[in-house]
């Protein structure tokens, strides 16, 4: 898989999780907690593989890196709001929709603008990056340090 295909597939996972979260009802509080925790973990992996592998690789061919970083920051800030809003709060889904809008904008911008720019790196290079992204993604999914970090973040954001 090419790098952009790997990232689009992961965008679909993230969009899917927030779509499911948005569709939950007030009676599905455990499902809300579960989907929220899963989104936190997936978005952490996504940010990390983009920051470590993809963004440095496309820095020469895309002027959008700063904007992409700013949008990651906005997703992070809004996720913190969703984390500290109780799942039974009447405003919970309002904050989830805001998070979904932030994520959808960021993903759509990458897919429509940054990924086509990345193609100027050549198909071979994109295949190579795609492999690196997949390897790192799998590694992070198994990583104990990552699990520990996500759990810590989950706890801290729930507390503050």
């Amino acid at each position, binding site marked *: 898989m090419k790098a952009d295909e790997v990232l689009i597939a992961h965008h679909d996972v993230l969009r899917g999780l927030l779509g499911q979260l948005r569709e939950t009802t007030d009676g599905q509080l455990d499902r809300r907690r579960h989907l929220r925790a899963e989104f936190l973990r997936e978005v952490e992996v996504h940010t990390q593989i983009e920051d470590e592998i993809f963004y440095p690789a496309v820095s020469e061919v895309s002027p959008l890196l700063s904007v992409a970083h700013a949008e990651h920051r906005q997703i992070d800030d809004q996720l913190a709001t969703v984390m500290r809003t109780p799942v039974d709060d009447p405003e919970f889904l309002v904050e989830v929709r805001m998070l979904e809008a932030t994520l959808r904008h960021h993903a759509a911008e990458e897919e429509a603008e940054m990924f086509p720019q990345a193609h100027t790196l050549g198909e071979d290079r994109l295949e190579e990056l795609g492999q690196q992204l997949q390897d790192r993604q799998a590694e992070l999914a198994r990583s104990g340090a990552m699990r520990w970090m996500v759990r810590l973040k989950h706890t801290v954001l729930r507390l*503050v």
Partner: protein
Amino acid sequence: MSVRSLLERATAAVERWELLDAPGYQVEHGISLTFLLTGRWARPLQDALHGVWLGHPLHPALVAVPIGAWSTALVLDGLDAAGRGGPGVGQAARMGVRVGVVGAAAAAATGLTDWQHTHDAARRVGMVHAALNGAALGLYGWSLADRSRGRATRARVSAATGYLLTVASGHLGGTLAHRLGIGGDHAVRTAEPRTFTAVAEQADLTEGVPHPVDVDGVPVVLVAEDGAVHAVAGSCPHLGGPLGEGWLHRGELVCPWHGSRFDLATGEPAQGPSTASLPCFDVRTRDGRVEVRRRVPRRTATALTTAEEASR
């Protein structure tokens, strides 16, 4: 070689210094985490430091405190060293240094808060600006400690060195504000259109979804909500982010880049980093078409008109 071209070469080198980018993002993550740990206070705290309540960035206003206090201290130190200040001049210099240290700490908090949301060249210049200021603050702190230990000469030398760094850093601060436009108003503020101009079919608007249009080359965003149509400028005053690609949250328009939020009726920022209001347009509907006219803000109406008339 002229002073200007030397300074321009120096700042241009900083602007292109890409090695700063990776550590820059680490520093930003640190700032971000610090704010997130304040929980629900993260937003109000950052807005207060940006100067959302003030209508322009708070940072340049606070910067006057250390520069003023340390300039005074420099003169008093000079008089003291020359033995011409009379009794109490050393004490006064020490007070000046102390006031400057407190002011510099406050300026640093506002500066770092603004810096988080800068890009590329401005981000790099901001890092060097902050590093020089940090070094100056350290020297002044050391100078204060020496003053209480009675090491007057060394205290004056470290303060004077700190002053030089502050001047160099001030130049970079000027570059950030006046050349790179950080803290400036990036909204497009023309007085046009002065008469109602059709910009869209009402049927094309979707309730609650921002609809970007173009009025004589100027981006405008239409938002249909609760039976009314609002029209505001399409470029974020903060750094020119594309508000037409934004979305609504609790009835406010969100900038997709840094998350500034704007009241649709007044254009006022409900959340930073933008400290300036969005230009607004009057809206009416005629035969199913949405028409807009620039709503000239009362307080600048005269200035705008005078400048415009003069240019014709």
